[in-house]
């Protein structure tokens, strides 16, 4: 018998983030399209709309939807906090075992959303890979370079991190904390944590296939993100290995330089008073000390907070508490005293 409570059990929460700088389609139309895909999946679903910043028009539309009796939750953030934070907020409001993130405009073909939901089956996360790309050379080139860089730096081989359409298990966001703009790196971090992440080729929608130029600051932000992700993935728990090595190398360079200058001064009588190279040598040594010291501080942070940093996932614990102890088996061993 299906009780009311079971009926209300949510299997899948779809989170849609609205942000003023993004494209967005007609809210009603989009909701209808998404709803059709989720309906086809035969899962119990809910919609969570997160409005990141001031978008009165969208809020109005969502209100209308709500009054029409749609099962939606709307969360509005006071100011713009970034996609990752918006996703966290949406996640906190959600109750589904599966989380599906959807863009505020049609990015992929609707049928593919259904395919994505079906593909998650025994995996932890499925991300979509828009292929073949319909947009122009420029977009292709941009994201190509970005993905190549990520592959080079982190070693993960994902083709389309920018695509918003992703589905993952609740556990993934329970374990991984993100903020600001890091949401696009969720698959990388999840992969590193040990979750099973896979790509699914999807058809790009025509609406998505527009040439996009980004403001220059965007590229710089991307680049900085790359660096931070590099640290997140490689050195989170061993800062001294990075800072310490850097520090030792620079200190060593400065020290060797100092010795050379010293020898020159004592044996060759080269005056040092007006040679800037002396300052370079001292600067290198000082930088070395600073880097090493920062590494030590990093280690202190890790050490004192290590309990919060449990970054592994236990798949199963097998404990046959009630399984019989096979006593006979132990009688075979010869007595030795």
């Amino acid at each position, binding site marked *: 018998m299906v009780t009311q409570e079971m009926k209300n059990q949510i299997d899948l929460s779809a989170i849609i983030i609205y942000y003023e700088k993004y494209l967005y389609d007609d809210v009603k139309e989009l909701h209808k399209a998404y709803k059709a895909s989720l309906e086809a999946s035969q899962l119990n679903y809910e919609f969570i709309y997160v409005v990141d910043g001031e978008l009165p028009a969208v809020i109005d539309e969502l209100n209308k939807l709500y009054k029409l009796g749609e099962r939606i939750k709307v969360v509005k953030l006071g100011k713009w906090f970034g996609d990752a934070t918006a996703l966290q907020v949406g996640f906190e409001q959600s109750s589904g075992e599966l989380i599906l993130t959807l863009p505020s405009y049609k990015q992929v073909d609707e049928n593919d959303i259904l395919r994505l939901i079906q593909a998650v089956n025994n995996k932890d996360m499925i991300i979509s890979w828009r292929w073949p790309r319909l947009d122009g050379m420029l977009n292709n080139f941009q994201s190509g370079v970005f993905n190549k860089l990520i592959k080079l730096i982190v070693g993960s081989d994902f083709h389309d991190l920018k695509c918003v359409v992703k589905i993952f298990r609740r556990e993934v966001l329970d374990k991984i904390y993100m903020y600001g703009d890091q949401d696009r790196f969720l698959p990388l971090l999840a992969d590193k944590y040990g979750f099973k992440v896979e790509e699914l080729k999807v058809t790009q929608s025509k609406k998505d296939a527009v040439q996009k130029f980004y403001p220059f600051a965007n590229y710089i932000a991307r680049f900085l993100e790359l660096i931070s992700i590099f640290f997140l993935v490689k050195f989170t728990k061993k800062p001294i290995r990075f800072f310490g*090595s850097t520090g030792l190398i620079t200190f060593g360079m400065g020290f060797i330089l100092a010795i050379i200058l010293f020898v020159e001064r004592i044996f060759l009588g080269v005056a040092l008073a007006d040679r800037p190279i002396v300052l370079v040598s001292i600067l290198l040594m*000082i930088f070395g000390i600073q880097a090493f010291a920062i590494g030590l501080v990093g280690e202190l942070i*890790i050490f004192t907070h290590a309990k919060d*940093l449990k970054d592994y996932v*236990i798949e199963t*614990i*097998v404990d046959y508490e009630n399984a*019989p102890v096979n006593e006979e088996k132990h009688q075979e061993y010869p007595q030795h005293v």
Partner: protein
Amino acid sequence: MDLSVVIPVYNEEESVNFLYEAVTKALFYLNRPYEILLVDDGSKDDTYQNALTLASSDSRLKIVKLKRNYGQTTALHAGFQNAKGKVIVTMDGDLQNDPDDIPLMLNKMDEGYDIVLGWRHDRKDFFISRKLPSKIANWLIRKVTGIPVKDNGCAIRAYRAEVIKNFPMYSEMHRLMPVITALVGAKFAQIKVKHHPRKFGHSKYGLSRIYKVLLDLVALKTIFSFFYIPLFGFGFLALASGLISLVILTIGILFLFIYPGQSLVTLFGASALFASLSLFLYFLGIMCHLIYRTGNLKIENLYRIKFR
């Protein structure tokens, strides 16, 4: 529960059965309630299936299966967190350790030690690739910490559970654990253990990573030695570097009067650089203070003995 034997295994499908047999055999005459925790560190072969078959007929065998391969430290941590014994014994899953040593270690422990370490005095490994790097590493660790642990790489160890349950396990901490627990005051003993050549598979740990382990060690030693000094010792470094700055500045000013007209760029520059270093270190010291205050793990709480 008296005893938990935690064994991380990674791709040991052939060894698992032998391992189980050997351990149960060794513990049979001990007459203590015990459990064996196999931590499957994301094996890609049939290790888990084999272990599962064994576990279904023996409730004392438990399996903790990790989602992927995380390395030995993490595997051990997962094992410790799920172990229920008062004493926790760790060993390698590759049959190179001999479980028959476990009763000996427990006897030693009853003499009042917190940790009993195995020491492979007759090690069955290649000299150049395994034994030599390990000898150098052990020597270095002894020199840096002053703690006379003979064999930091030996996996067979017995710990009192309360000594390690609170222990932060990250990076490659498991190698340094004896040294670090000794640094906070745990009493340790070392006994000679048997060591067998590898039967199956190949060694999963590459050539020794002495350099990395040493860096980790320097960091930890610094943290442990300086945490009770104001500003974590950075205060003293800051003072020293401030002093250097002042000395150079004085020399510069003297030169100004003794040799007027000579260029003083380097002297004043150097003085300024050391002054900035001094400030930087002072600030870092304050940061350390903040971090330590807000952290949830205090070094002084790491080792607490409950008297029974």
